């Protein structure tokens, strides 16, 4: 066999193999749900008016000076539309259309004001774009239920791999950019942790240099060494536990909105594609055992 053919067999063919659709479907439901909650948060906190109606001037992205907010109550309706599209994505109804419209509708909001730039909204745009490409409505979806022809328990492997590689890029860059003189000298992380030294129990530790150093250098190691290890079955479990601890810590320390939840949902895509089924079976068996034991105790 020649070199090219073996390369193809090793790297290209596997991308078109069918794998369990469950992990992609789980991510679809999680992403749609998180975005639905985010729309609700914008509404609830009055951000729609404060960010997109009240300002008299908007900072434009280079080349996108023509993007303007809707007049009147248009921005509210826009967020209603975004919420409906998020819901459609979550339940897998009119999925492809919903994903495409969501991509454009969300990108539009993003482009309105540079002062609102957030890395996690950029990530949402990238995810939304990839969502338009993948057949995430083949199972556990209204589309598949209404049109059984569509229904299938598998998806091509590339649709999982595209997400994995996208998250790898985000994680590895998040580590690489921290190899910079300020971060290596423990700022700005030191200042931020010092401001939270009123935290119960661990608060006083935030004033200790060695704690800050452990966190600052640990994050670099987690992203640069840990993220690639997510790709290997033997190491992925340990790294995933670290990542979940990292994201939860970020959530409680810095309150960075939906970012930890989106990335945690994304990180689960590194597991074997059938993990939701195995998790369900495990939970079901556990519940059954507990019921049986409960019944036995009641009888005894």
């Amino acid at each position, binding site marked *: 066999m020649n070199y090219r053919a073996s390369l193809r067999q090793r790297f*290209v*063919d*596997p*991308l*078109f*193999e*069918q*794998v*369990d659709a469950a992990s992609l479907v789980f991510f679809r439901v999680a992403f749609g749900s998180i975005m639905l909650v985010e729309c609700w948060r914008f509404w609830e906190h009055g951000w729609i008016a*404060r*960010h997109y109606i*009240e*300002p*008299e*001037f908007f*900072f*434009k992205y*280079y080349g996108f000076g023509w993007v303007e907010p809707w007049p009147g109550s248009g921005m509210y309706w826009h967020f209603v539309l975004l919420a409906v599209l998020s819901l459609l994505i979550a339940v897998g109804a009119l999925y492809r259309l919903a994903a495409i419209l969501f991509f454009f509708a969300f990108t539009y909001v993003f482009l309105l*004001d*540079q*002062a*609102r*730039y957030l*890395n996690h909204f*950029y990530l949402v745009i*990238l995810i939304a774009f990839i969502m338009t490409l993948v057949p995430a409505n083949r199972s556990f979806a209204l589309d598949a239920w209404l049109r059984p022809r569509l229904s299938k*328990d*598998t998806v091509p492997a*590339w649709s999982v791999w*595209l997400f994995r*590689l*996208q998250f790898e*890029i*985000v994680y590895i*860059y*998040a580590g690489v*950019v*921290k190899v*910079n*003189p*300020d*971060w290596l*000298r*423990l*700022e*700005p*992380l*030191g*200042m*931020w942790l*010092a*401001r939270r030294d009123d935290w119960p129990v661990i608060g006083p530790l935030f*004033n200790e240099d060695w704690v800050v150093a452990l966190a600052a250098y640990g994050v670099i190691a987690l992203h640069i060494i840990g993220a690639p290890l997510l790709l290997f079955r033997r190491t992925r479990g340990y790294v995933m536990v670290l990542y979940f601890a990292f994201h939860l810590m970020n959530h409680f320390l*810095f309150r960075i909105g939906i970012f930890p939840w989106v990335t945690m949902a994304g990180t689960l895509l590194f597991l074997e594609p*059938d993990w939701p*089924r195995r998790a369900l079976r495990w939970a079901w068996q556990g519940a059954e055992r507990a019921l049986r034991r409960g019944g036995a105790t009641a009888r005894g």
Partner: protein
Amino acid sequence: MNIKAATRTSGGALQPRHWLLLGFIAVWLVFQLLFPLRHLLYPGSPSWTEEGHRFAWQMKLRDKKAQAIFFVRDPASGREWRALPDDYLVAHQARKVGTRPDMILQFAHYLAQLWAQERDIDGVEVRARVCASLNGRKAVLLIDPDRDLARVERSLRHADWILPLEQPFERPKPRTGLLDLSC
């Protein structure tokens, strides 16, 4: 397991649409890899200049605070007005404008436009004195205070009116960060 059986490849030849998809994915990934490196094309730290900072996963790297005063000038009469971001922007915008040179420029253009429209002044000049502190450093000038920003065109090239960060790093005192932004 029935699922295991379904994961076997059909072994069939790849069709043109498969190669098209692969090509697209390759282009997407190469773009994702290269785009965050834009900051290497600019001199200085992206945390200071903000050039190439966005869309590059530069996360949690800068604690940056700034105090910005804009000066609008009528070249014919020599009359000058002071303009503060707080009077023209909402709070979250005003808090950011001084720390992001490209936003300073956009805001300067906005002021020039306001003065031209409302006071009918020709050739309005706008300058800004911006003191900024990065990661606990003593606050220093972020941009050239003598440059007429109304004459500066927005571009993706390096902004030569951003002053290089020469203030050396020192651990901030108090540890929670610097509050004095005068420079």
